[in-house]
């Protein structure tokens, strides 16, 4: 019997003593967990690169990616494009039926990038204590980069949706309160300015190599965004002040209007004119080739081309506006939007070469920002000179000039039109027109209405005009899933009644 007792004891020991926690603690082998990350400056670097990489495409989640939205938000409600093939999301926008279920109203890709930035800001400082080779200065520099990216994301969101939630902490655990309510546009702009002010102090002027200097945030990138923000916020002297920092730096200039202009500026990228551009590569192709060439959902609008690049019977083709046929669009390819497609002015790229960069800011825009601000400050003459610099480089045709624009009103239109020509299909159009239209309490709403009518289908013009007269409709509705998931969110005013 003793034997059985001893067996019983052994068994009892076996059954109770073995359920060790250790055996049940398993870590993933093919990934890394936060507790194991944030150990060296290389980790910080890779996480900062993660924020940039998220600007090129979706790593997770669904919906349009950041680069697609940069294009669509800037262009789809503008007058430069028309629908080439059926795509319901686009058709409904063009017909003025923007509902909260339209995919272009999804902002998730932007907030994903914002969260990556927030994550760096929250955990990178811990590395200082762990990695002795990581300096305070390097940390500040990295922080400046992600703060600027975050500010840029919020700036797009504020201009597109008007009011958006502000989230400044990393979403690291489900303990957080996720139902963040919207902040007003002014609050968002204040946050953006704060981030940019801090970033300007720490961002480097250069990263040594050309690609990084153009592909990462430098102090001039910060200044460019600041200029844009101040212009939007009608703080013209601040805008001019920021523009001057870039103009006086001596780092930038306009690309010559010779035969290599197109390939220097758009095909090869990282030109002397470029301030910040997203560096697509063979590993991650840009989404524009698929959207504009392979599937060709969108093409250049014939009406807009008539309007902005009117043919000049007196001009020989070789000396025509360099930004017209063969640069912004390609007539012989059935109005294909050419900036991201052309290998040069005549040939298209192969699909596998579709890694043309997305230019966020370039020097020409700084000049036109300054011109716009100067015009508002009553310094029209100086502004006109800047516009002429741009036009001269572009060999702009006289037919596209209103003659001598002297008064503030006509110069405003002239600058706006010139921006349209210069930055055609660079995701600027809608924001430009809205900025000008809303100035001084929608003094120039006529410009926005004129644009809308230009691109609207004839049978929809009345409906669309009525809709856009309500200035609340200038901001997109919040995508319906956001409202479902976030009880603190309220639909944007114009769309509020829609269930």
């Amino acid at each position, binding site marked *: 019997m003793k034997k059985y007792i001893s067996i019983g004891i052994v068994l009892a020991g076996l059954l109770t003593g073995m359920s060790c926690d250790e055996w049940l603690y398993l870590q993933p082998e*093919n990934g890394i967990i936060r507790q194991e990350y944030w150990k060296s400056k290389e980790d910080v670097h890779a996480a900062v690169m993660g924020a940039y990489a998220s600007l090129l495409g979706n790593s997770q989640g669904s919906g349009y990616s950041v680069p697609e939205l940069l294009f669509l938000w800037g262009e789809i409600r503008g007058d430069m494009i028309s629908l080439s093939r059926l795509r319901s999301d686009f058709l409904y926008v063009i017909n003025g039926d923007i509902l909260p279920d339209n995919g272009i109203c999804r902002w998730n890709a932007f*907030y994903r990038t914002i969260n990556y930035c927030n994550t760096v800001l929250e955990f990178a400082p811990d590395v200082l204590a762990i990695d002795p080779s990581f300096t305070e200065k390097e940390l500040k520099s990295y922080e400046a980069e992600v703060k600027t990216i975050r500010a840029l994301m919020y700036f797009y969101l504020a201009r597109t949706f008007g009011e958006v939630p502000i989230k400044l902490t990393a979403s690291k655990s*489900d303990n957080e309160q*996720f139902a963040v309510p919207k902040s007003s546009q002014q609050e968002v702009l204040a946050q953006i300015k704060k981030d940019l002010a801090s970033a300007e102090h720490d961002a480097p002027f250069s990263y040594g190599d050309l690609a990084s200097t153009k592909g990462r945030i430098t102090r001039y990138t910060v200044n460019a965004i600041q200029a844009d923000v101040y212009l939007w916020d009608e703080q013209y002297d601040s805008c001019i002040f920021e523009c001057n920092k870039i103009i006086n730096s001596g780092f930038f200039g306009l690309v010559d209007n010779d035969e290599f202009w197109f390939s220097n500026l758009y095909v090869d990228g990282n030109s002397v004119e470029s301030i910040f551009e997203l560096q697509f590569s063979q590993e*991650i*192709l840009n989404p524009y080739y698929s959207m504009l060439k392979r599937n060709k959902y969108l093409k250049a609008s014939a009406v807009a081309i008539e309007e902005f690049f009117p043919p000049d019977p007196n001009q020989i083709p070789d000396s025509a506006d360099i930004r017209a046929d063969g640069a912004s669009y390609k007539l012989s390819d059935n109005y294909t939007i050419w900036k991201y497609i052309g290998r040069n002015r005549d040939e298209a790229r192969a699909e596998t070469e579709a890694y043309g960069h997305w230019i966020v800011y370039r020097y020409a825009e700084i000049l036109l920002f300054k011109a716009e601000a100067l015009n508002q400050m009553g310094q029209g003459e100086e502004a006109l000179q800047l516009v002429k610099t741009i036009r001269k480089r572009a060999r702009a045709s006289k037919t596209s000039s209103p003659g001598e624009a002297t008064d503030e009103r006509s110069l405003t239109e002239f600058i706006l039109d010139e921006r349209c020509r210069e930055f055609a299909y660079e995701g600027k159009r809608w924001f430009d027109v809205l900025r000008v239209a809303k100035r001084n309490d929608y003094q120039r709403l006529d410009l926005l209405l004129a644009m809308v009518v230009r691109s609207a289908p004839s049978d929809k013009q009345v409906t669309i005009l009525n809709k856009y007269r309500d200035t609340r409709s200038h901001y997109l509705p919040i995508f*319906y899933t956001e409202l479902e998931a976030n009880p603190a*969110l309220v639909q944007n005013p114009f769309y509020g*009644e829609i269930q």
Partner: protein
Amino acid sequence: MKKIPKQLFHAVLLGFFLLSGLAAKGQHLVRGKVTSATDGLGLPGATIVEMDRNNRIVKGSVTDLDGNYVIQVSDAENNIQFSFIGYQSLTKPIAGQSTINVELSEDIKQIEAVEIVAESRVNTGFMDVADRDLAIPVQKLSAAEIAEVQATTIDEAIQGRLAGVDIVSNSGDPGGGMSIRIRGVSTLNANARPLIVVDNVPYETSISSDFDFATANEEGYAQMLNIAVDDIKEITVLKDAAATALWGTKAANGVLAITTKRGMKSIKPMVAYTYKGTFSFEPKPIPMLSGDQYSTLIMEGVMNVNGIPLDRVENKEFLYDPNEPWWYYNYGQNTNWLDEISRRGYIHNHDFSLSGGGDKAHYRFSVNYQDQDGVTIGTSLNRFTTRLNLDYYISDKLRLGADLSYAHGKSDRNYSSNLRSVAYQKMPNMGVYEFDAQGNQTPVFFSPDQNIQGGYSSTYNPVAMAEAGEYTTTNDRIIPKFQLNYNILPGLSYTFDIAFDINNTKRNYFLPQIATGKLWTNLSVNRASDSDEDSYYIYSNNRLSYTNTFANIHQITATLNFQTNDTKAIRYLATTANSASSDFRDPSIPARIQEGGLELSSSSWQNRDNGIVAMFHYTLLDRYIVSGGFRREGNSRFDEKFRYGYYPSLSMAWRLSGEKFMSSLSFLDDLRIKASYGQNGYPPRYPYAFFNNYNTFSWTYLGSTAVYPVDMELENLKWEAFITKNLGFTLEMFKTRIMLDFDLYQNSTKDMFGYNVALPSSSGYDNILMNVGSLDNQGWDLSFRSYPVRTEALSISFDFNVAKNYNILRKVADNYPLERGRTTTNGDYKRIIQVGNPIGSFYGYRYLGVYSDEEDLVAIDANGNKIYNPNGEPVNMVYNFPSVNYEFQPGDAKYQDINHDGNINYLDVVYLGDANPDFTGGFGSTVKYKGFSLNIYFYGRYGNEIINQTKMYGENMFSYDNQTTATLKRWRKPGDQTDMPRALIGYGYNWLGSDRYVDDGSFLRMKYVTLTYYMPRSLIGKIGMDKVRFSLQLTNLLTFTRYLGQDPEININSRDGTIYTVGYDQSNTPRPKELTFTIGLNF
């Protein structure tokens, strides 16, 4: 596996320890002669073994040619056993003797039939309890009941046969798999599949869940359940937590316990062979428009949008100009794409088994081979399974069991899972093969890169895809299982089980250029993918069980178990594109790998859990039964905070029929009232959720690695908890001629998991896994079996089962979205979940037909009067004022203006139906007359609604997809009276979610009818046969339904893993009608 779990090591040590109790004693030589009692001659080759007190064989020897033997025994106190084939064995004590001569007499009784009288017992896992003593809801199906049925898989064989078990096949494709639900969907978790247990070892069917959560579906892993139907002895369904407590949290969705056949003690080996041959025919598909009808519709639909005709110079697909022969011929056909991809299918199935056994060892060996071609071109299944079950009785006290099963399966599917839907939608004016520029037909598939309908992947040439595309899954699975059983004392025994499961799945995909027509540099061209998924599973269990009866009135059974599960899985994946030729189909051949979408990746995960279970079963006076248990489970998917779950269970039964006051009702065999209560839990579907995981982008930025946080740390994630309550009775009457089981149950799910719960994306994430609320499943199930006639020559049985399940949402988390779907979007339904209501309801508009003419458009108020605007003009109906303000046109779909405001908007949305059936069940009968047997079985569902997406997309006239012939009656000109709106390509609101697409999903299907003939034994006995049978079976021959879609038997699964999308019919391959011929031979 790097580290052997400590428990395992200890367990093995313990095993040795237990065996070492057998100590050696002094040695001794014994000699003698074995002779035959019949003729007195020596028996050469007879076996002589020394056996100890427990009949354990210690030593052995054989006799020489004259029957003499010598054996050196280790203990002179042991016994010696003498045996020879055809003779009765004899055991003699040695008792110190050195010479023992024996005579063996011939065994003449051996061939006589043996009738075994025993009560039927049910295997609930670790405790064998007599059926009649059960207090828990359990249902059983024995092999005999399904033996005559042709079925590829077990789930198919038992479909509709068990009350409360809803089994629906995912599609009609070979290896398509079944989704199984026991007593409704207990959780929002898409993986609500019950645990499959084979011979007391859990059988993993969701190995790959970690690899591809987004697309993981049961179909993909279905072929893992590859156990030959012929090997099954019995299937037991354990329905509630009191019953499943033994299996722990894996069993939270119920258990399907499968017991395979084992060898039995018999003298001569038994050989059985069965062949089944099946032809399958596809039911008639929904008729689609011909090429000419289609072109007319498209041109009309484009014109209707804004009055501008289709530009036929840009879109020559509709040009029909003989001067452009290439376009004229290639786009001037009338192709029936569905016919082109369909064919007749067949199945060949061979089963062979060999079983037998002697005193010491029993064996059963089986081989199954199955070869199946599906009704869609390019689908097939080829499977080989073998199984060996061995039992060796070392002694009366010690038994060793070893089971080994190996399965090799290869299934071919279409590269694209949407082949059939593409065939439905494909432009019928295109041809299958290309015509050249002169208009001559070529043998090359016609696969243009792009046309008006789009390109790959939304559309392609389905025939080219079926013929040339490749998607092969090869699966090898080895499951060795060992069991050691030691009877320590009478009534007390110890069992050690260890099982390994090695499962290798290789998937090869290849997408040839010809299937898509893409340019050679496109990344879809010659895209080859090869993935290897290996999983290793180790299961161990130490069990101490005790059974005893005291004073003839107390019967007690108790067990104590310690279990461990350890699963590790790894995967490698390579995807390349643009290999030089369509013959280079393996990614190992150098091709492009660098670009986006192509990859070389690997992943791995591991999961562990352990459980301590104590259980008892106590019977007093054969009338009062109590059983209960307690389980503590630890799981590696949780952090310390919630790592352990504690689950008690208790059940009771009272046998009324055993009471004295019932004794007058002598026809009652058994009447028992049962009540049970149990708790269980469920861990999340994937591991590492309690970490904040980081990963790298598949691209770099400026050449630098880019890292991002993949998810959040889930600090608050708890076990999904189940509480089940069951009350029922079992009735057996008239010598088991009538058997009735009825159970009422309530299953509550607390802290239910919500996968992909929408999160405000301002957090940076779109969704999260969280505990979202509570859900109750309550209902009843009834099972009735009867043998109205049971004589030697004629027997008739009739079975019937029916079940009803209600689900009710009890609670949801604050931020859990209660609504899904937009009524403003074409084709979408609003799905609202409300606390206190069932989930799975759809809301939408009421469809009233079509606005026939201008007059019809005028808005009418509640009193039936026209609505006027301030200028005194009548107002027309509008859609969604003010944000859309679309004015309805003649020919547009007319929705009911519920609130009579002249505006169709969200205020007009009403309840349209729900996806939950009122009843599910089946009934059948077997009639046996002499050698003939007729078996017929029906099953069905009643009272559920289906969103008929086949109809939705076949009648919307919204895109360039082909439409059904129902659209021929569409509205064309003012005054047309019809219920089919006008064609409106890419615009309008003609197919908003409305009752137009909500159909009654009730059906009754004749699952099979089988006629079997057994040849008389007198005839076949002469040629040495034991049993010969022939049978003919018709499967899925008849379906009674009002449903107008392809097949009302739709998957119970939700489409995307959330509860919002149940009840959608996506028109997969319909279940084919089959004709099967079977020959069974037993030797």
